């Protein structure tokens, strides 16, 4: 409401400023000429100065003076004749134009693109009261770290959050910073290596392998690192060595270890006669399972909720907020293909050009879901 009052005041103030000159009593306009007279007078002055200073000869000065004087006389004659009769009209039409044009054009154009419902959202204010906006919480932590880049514990806390939000490159950096400041530990090394693997679409890169090797040298019984090292061997095509590594890992694990089934599946795949494609690159689920090697699985419950949400949206696709929650949840669960699929479905309902579509795309960019192909 205050906004509309201010809009009204602003419009009225401008209208008054424009109408005031129209209300003044009109007088006669003196035509030009007087200005020319001033210029020629000044030219004569200048000639006099130049002559006195010896800059031009007296002969030249005389000729010039005659020329200027001729123009001066002509201009003076002009100045006398040029009067125009007064236009004492009331300019009703002009006043109407001002009064109508300002609010009409102003409101039409403004309402076409303006968002009077949206408050300003300065970052500092959002940081002070983040609510449950995860990206703002992250931003807050980032701000803190930008001021205190030496806070290793901060990097350590932030790193897994980055992974969950799909900001893998930042996660790699955060793990590296934590390791640099607090010293290398299996968790920090493994976390960084895992983020690198996700960045490489499941390939255990050279860099990741070296990190795992370092991790194993720190803690030889680290099952996560040993699993990935075995996987690296498998991806390189060294099936025998990979199988041996998996078997050693299985042998060294307690009988009820949650990762045993995954390891055994790999062993089975490698033992099989044909090269089993399923044992090649790990699926997203494999990576999720591998993460369980160090953390409890809390995702089961969330996954159930997400499924019911997805079912609800299939029935009622007009729920924009529901779509946003669903996309976010998929990213948190690290099910990025599903997140992308959900985005694509949502964009069918809310075209990319619409306000809601843009909202969805902004969310996608925030969560670094690729938007190249979904938007077309």
């Amino acid at each position: 409401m205050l906004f509309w009052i201010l809009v009204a005041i602003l419009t009225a103030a401008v209208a008054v400023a424009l109408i005031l000159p129209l209300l003044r009593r009109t007088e006669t306009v003196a035509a030009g000429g007087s200005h020319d007279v001033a210029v020629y007078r000044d030219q004569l002055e200048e000639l006099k100065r130049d002559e006195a200073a010896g800059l031009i000869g007296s002969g030249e000065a005389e000729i010039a003076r005659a020329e200027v004087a001729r123009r001066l006389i002509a201009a003076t004659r002009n100045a006398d004749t040029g009067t125009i009769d007064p236009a004492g009209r009331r300019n009703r039409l002009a006043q109407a134009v001002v009064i109508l044009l300002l609010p009409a054009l102003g409101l039409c154009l403004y309402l076409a693109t303006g968002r009077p419902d949206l408050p300003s959202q300065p970052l500092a204010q959002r940081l002070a009261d983040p609510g449950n906006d995860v990206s703002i919480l992250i931003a807050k932590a980032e701000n803190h770290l930008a001021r205190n880049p030496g806070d290793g514990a901060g990097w350590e806390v932030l790193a897994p959050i980055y992974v969950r939000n799909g900001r893998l490159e930042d996660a790699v950096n955060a793990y590296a910073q934590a390791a640099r400041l607090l010293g290398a530990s299996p968790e920090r090394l493994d976390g960084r290596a895992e983020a690198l693997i996700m960045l490489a679409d499941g390939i255990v890169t050279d860099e990741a392998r070296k990190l795992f090797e370092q991790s194993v040298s720190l803690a030889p019984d680290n099952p996560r690192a040993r699993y990935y090292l075995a996987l690296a061997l498998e991806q390189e095509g060294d099936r025998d060595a990979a199988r041996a590594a998996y078997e050693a890992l299985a042998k060294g694990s307690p009988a009820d270890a949650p990762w045993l089934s995954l390891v055994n599946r790999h062993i089975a795949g490698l033992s099989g006669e044909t090269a089993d494609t399923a044992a090649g690159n790990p699926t997203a689920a494999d990576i999720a399972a591998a993460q369980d090697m160090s953390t409890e699985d809390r995702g089961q419950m969330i996954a159930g909720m997400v499924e019911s949400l997805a079912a609800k949206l299939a029935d009622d696709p007009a729920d924009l907020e529901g779509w946003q929650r669903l996309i976010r949840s998929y990213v948190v669960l690290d099910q990025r293909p599903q997140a992308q699929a959900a985005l694509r479905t949502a964009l069918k309902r809310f075209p990319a050009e619409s306000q809601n579509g843009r909202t969805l795309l902004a969310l996608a960019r925030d969560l670094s879901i690729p938007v190249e192909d979904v938007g077309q």
Partner: protein
Amino acid sequence: MTRKQKRLVVIGGGVAFLLAAVLLVMFAFSQSIAYFYVPGDLQTENVAPGTRIRLGGLVEAGSVRRGEGSTITFTVTDTLATVPVTYTGILPDLFREGQGVVAEGALGGDGLFVADTVLAKHDETYMPKDVADRLEAQGVQLSGKETIK
């Protein structure tokens, strides 16, 4: 000389000057224009070795080799054909494998393109327009090019 003649002389001088300038521009054009090609063009069109051209395309992944000192060789591709390029000097900051590039120079007799200037794309969303147009015309999917803005 009468006033009229004088005026003619002045106007004639001006026109002569302009004529000279036009000739100068045409001469300079004939000397210093470089045509733009992508590697595929070089196979179909006959470009004489030594002619100054601009070669655009993508830097083929894995093709960048550092030689003696600051000499670098790499391959420019439009996915239809490739052209080897050699360049001595400092590459632009944004020169990367798999990204758009424009090299200016001339073809040697042996098919090696000797570049004296190498321009890379200038920011994340900008690809040299020539390159983008031509590659798109040939149906090449551009990597890293944002389609939503």
